[in-house]
């Protein structure tokens, strides 16, 4: 990503922009498994897409350790971006992470390596933010809170055995991880409360 000044690659209106990104993420979780607009004027940083950067700036700070998938962890410019713009510590141990970032859904497995929360505090879990190439609506069928009727949703590239992974993730409810998928200027989410069936 030559030519992009990463020092100035940040929200132009920090209060308004982070609000819009948060509302997109909130609505994505509230009305899950359906893509919605994720506003972002950021430039990419290394392998990290603007949408993921926008979520990073909106949600992460000194209090939230961040874990990077290997495709992202090697990017020096990304590490500098995180240190400069949000101050979040980057950790190697996925169980310590509040947020984990992926440049591809193929890196997701296994979900159980991340913090699942504990029975008294199921909120102490990792939120996974995953860049995908496309959303499609035929791979899996979801039902549960946020959906008035079962809904088809999928991502590509599709991780092998995702339905089993998600079944296991939901089976531990209220423990488990939540997924936020980012595709260009769109976001879709899978909270742990959703049940899955393959079509």
């Amino acid at each position: 990503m030559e030519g992009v000044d990463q020092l100035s690659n940040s929200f132009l209106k920090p209060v308004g922009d982070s609000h819009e990104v948060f509302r997109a993420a909130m609505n994505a979780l509230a009305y899950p498994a359906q893509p919605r607009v994720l506003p972002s004027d950021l430039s990419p940083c290394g392998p990290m897409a603007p949408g993921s950067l926008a979520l990073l700036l909106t949600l992460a700070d000194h209090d939230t350790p961040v874990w990077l998938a290997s495709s992202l962890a090697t990017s020096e410019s990304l590490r500098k971006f995180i240190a400069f713009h949000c101050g979040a510590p980057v950790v190697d141990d996925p169980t310590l992470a509040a947020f984990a970032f992926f440049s591809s859904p193929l890196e997701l497995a296994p979900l159980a390596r991340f913090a699942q929360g504990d029975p008294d505090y199921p909120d102490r879990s990792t939120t996974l933010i995953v860049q995908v190439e496309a959303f499609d609506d035929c791979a899996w069928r979801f039902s549960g809170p946020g959906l008035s009727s079962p809904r088809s949703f999928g991502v590509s590239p599709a991780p092998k055995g995702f339905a089993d992974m998600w079944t296991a993730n939901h089976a531990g409810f209220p423990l488990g991880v939540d997924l936020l998928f980012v595709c260009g200027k769109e976001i879709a989410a899978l909270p742990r409360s959703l049940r899955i069936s393959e079509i």
Partner: protein
Amino acid sequence: MSDLPEYNFAYLDEQTKRMIRRAILKAIAIPGYQTPFASREMPMPYGWGTGGVQVTAAILGTDDVLKVIDQGSDDTTNAVSIRKFFARTAGVRTTTRTPEATIIQTRHRIPETALGEHQVIVYQVPIPEPLRFLEPRETETRRMHALEDYGVMHVKLYEDIAQHGHIATAYAYPVKVDERYVMDPSPTPKFDNPKMNQCPALQLFGAGREKRIYAIPPYTRVVSLDFEDHPFERTRISGACSLCNSTKAFLDEVITDDQGGRAFMCSDTDYCEQARSRIGPLS
């Protein structure tokens, strides 16, 4: 003397908003679970809506239209005070019309007008723990939720039936959310409980003093606790509103004279006004 600060949009600083926003996302992902958050001291007293105010401040944007009600009314003093606070610190548009609002902050009522997908309702919660009056210790109630052990609650409701023939809870009537967590709906009358079930709007609950946020996502099953032989009953004073004639809305009782004369009128003032503007004033 040091200069007083210029307050951020919607009063809270961005770091505080991030912390609250993270808690809201977790609350949505775990429906009915009380997510701890580092509640801040707000410029209004604890117990007067600081939890609701912090949730609203964290989700509010410049395009939002805010409605604030207390006891169903837009004009009760605390509703006025909170609406003024946001008009001043966020400069957002406010309304009393339920359908026009994108965010509704409420204390003790759910509007009679059905909510839609474009809306978020934020409840002010005094005691978020539905088991608190049965077990005062947080360490104990937390375990009960973890183990899904709600025996004490069923025993309490059953004792009510044995003693009174009814479940003697008229407000803050406990519910089970998506078949997992027992949740306190905040001190709304149990008349309002069915409105929470499969509601198209996102429902957020903020308890400032107790430092908890919880949520019911849209289209989520919310069941009022009951027994097969004593099913949940939605109760309402029988009678009509003296102003709009409604026989469906929840009514407030008003003492009209020294002899104990009484009249009834809608607790939801916007609903009542709309009904009146449709039918014209009653003679």
